[in-house]
């Protein structure tokens, strides 16, 4: 027992500390184990229920079928094609959404009067269910890529603007007083203080913007996609291939979770530097 501990915890200040670290490690291991166990149990339960016939696989598919669908897509070499399309669309709308949102926020910060005038409209636009506007986008932006991006932007830009603007206005007033004693212009104040001081807020706006971009792209592909995971889902539904629907949902979940994690990681680095 002692040797196992020593092997697992080579570095420790003393025996008590080793016990402590050992317990921590066991605890962490139990957590990770449980996480995998939950996943595994769900999959097994699903598969079992499907095989025994408790659930109708035509409706809910089953893990092995989903896996086979993924393999088939891979062999068709369409798997990464669809994933790439959706990621590309999401990436473009995410970046555009963040830039546009920050720009609008900048304008509203600069021109307070406009800010006040636009205030109720921002609230209305924010609470407007943008999904209902789908057909309008097709009219304005035509079919395909542009409409999808427009849908995603419609969904993400206002939220981004509101968060970034609140970041701008919440910058500690004392910083503004400080640069005022140096005789700073509005432009200098913005570039030297407001913008860098808001980077943590902008970083957290990114999270919202990212998840809304995913939603927007999926809705956009429902509307007028020719490829991508959202298209796969709606095509699967149209042709009664629930396997395909579930597969694309699973793939979407994986992609968006990964992108989210990357963002959180980047955000932590930024937060560390900027606050």
């Amino acid at each position, binding site marked *: 027992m002692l040797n196992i501990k020593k092997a697992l915890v080579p570095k420790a200040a003393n025996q008590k500390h080793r016990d402590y670290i050992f317990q921590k490690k066991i605890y962490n291991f139990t957590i990770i184990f449980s996480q995998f166990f939950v996943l595994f149990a769900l999959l097994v339960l699903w598969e079992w229920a499907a095989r025994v016939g408790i659930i109708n696989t035509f409706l809910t598919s089953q893990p092995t079928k989903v896996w086979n669908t993924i393999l088939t897509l891979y062999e068709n070499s369409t798997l990464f094609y669809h994933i790439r399309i959706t990621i590309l669309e999401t990436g473009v709308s995410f970046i555009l959404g963040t830039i546009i949102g920050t720009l609008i926020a900048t304008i509203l910060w600069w021109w307070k009067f406009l800010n006040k005038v636009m205030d109720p409209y921002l609230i209305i636009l924010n609470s407007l269910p943008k999904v209902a506007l789908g057909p309008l986008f097709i009219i304005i932006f035509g079919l395909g890529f542009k409409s999808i991006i427009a849908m995603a932007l419609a969904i993400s830009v206002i939220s981004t603007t509101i968060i970034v603007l609140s970041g701008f206005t919440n910058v500690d007033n004392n910083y503004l007083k400080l640069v005022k004693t140096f005789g700073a212009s509005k432009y200098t104040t913005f570039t030297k203080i407001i913008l860098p001081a808001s980077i943590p807020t902008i970083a957290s706006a990114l999270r919202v913007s990212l998840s809304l971009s995913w939603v927007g792209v999926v809705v956009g592909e429902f509307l007028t*996609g020719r490829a991508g995971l959202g298209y796969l889902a709606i095509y699967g539904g149209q042709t009664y291939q629930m396997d395909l629907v579930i597969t694309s949902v699973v793939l979407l979940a994986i992609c968006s979770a990964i992108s989210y994690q990357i963002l959180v990681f980047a955000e932590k680095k930024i937060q560390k530097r900027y606050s």
Partner: protein
Amino acid sequence: GCKENDVESMPKVRVSEVIHSVFYAPQYVALHKGYFEDEGLDVELAIAWGADRGAAALLSNSADIALFGPEAAVYIAREQTDTKLVGFAQLTQKDGSFFLAREPMPEFEWTDVKGKTIIGGRPGGVPQMVQEYVLYHNDVVPHHDVEIIQNIDLGATAQAFENDVGDFVQLFEPGASIVENTGSGHVVASFGEAGGDIPYTVYHATDSYIEENPDIIQKFTNAIYRAQIWVDNHSAEEIAEVIQPSFAETDYDILVSSVERYKKQDTWSKDPILRKESLDKLQEICIFSEELDKKVPYEEIVKTKFAEEAVKSINID
């Protein structure tokens, strides 16, 4: 004659329709003229917004009876065998969509579309398959002689056409009437006429439900048959008047013109019997579009017993 109705315990029947459309006029007639009530049924309508979801509603037991095209039952019979969806009463016997061009073309020939662009429906959907079938049998090879746009949501095809996308568009009512009203499109052909008789929308239930509730199915079929008779014997204006409550949001004139158009081309079945020839034709169309490899036996997905009984017991007055 009608059976006695027991007002105390009217069985509740959850019915789902694919979409909410004038295309299913006899159903609303049955509803608003009280035929379901007469039969002793408490019908609750829900909208599935898609045939796939209508089928899913049956399979997951969230609807008792669902109205959709039998192709869904065909696909499901192909995919799995434990639960079968069985069609027992046919509502429409023709495709309900129309073909619109930008200019009036009194001398329209299907070959006129060669080299042009058509706004179609989603791949795998029946309207799209019928379109391809009709084109092919009129010497136009789909996707080869003609470009077909398929990635537009059903709710946005008319708008896309209005917005100068494509040369032709396939539209249901009241879309066709509305687009004609704006003057930017003109009906040049009807897929109902061109495609011939196919079981376009049919009431389905699971085989187990039919087995357990033959009474309900019979009463329901009776009500539908009575409505079909009524619709057949009345003018478009009269029909529009009756179904208006179900289309409170639609302009009355548009409603009349839509009904008129459907009536003129015999869209609605005269009786609820789903015949073998027409199902075969539908399956051919599916096979043609490569969505199906071989036909599913007629008996497996259709039961005409109730429809025949209705036709026998109800006299046309």
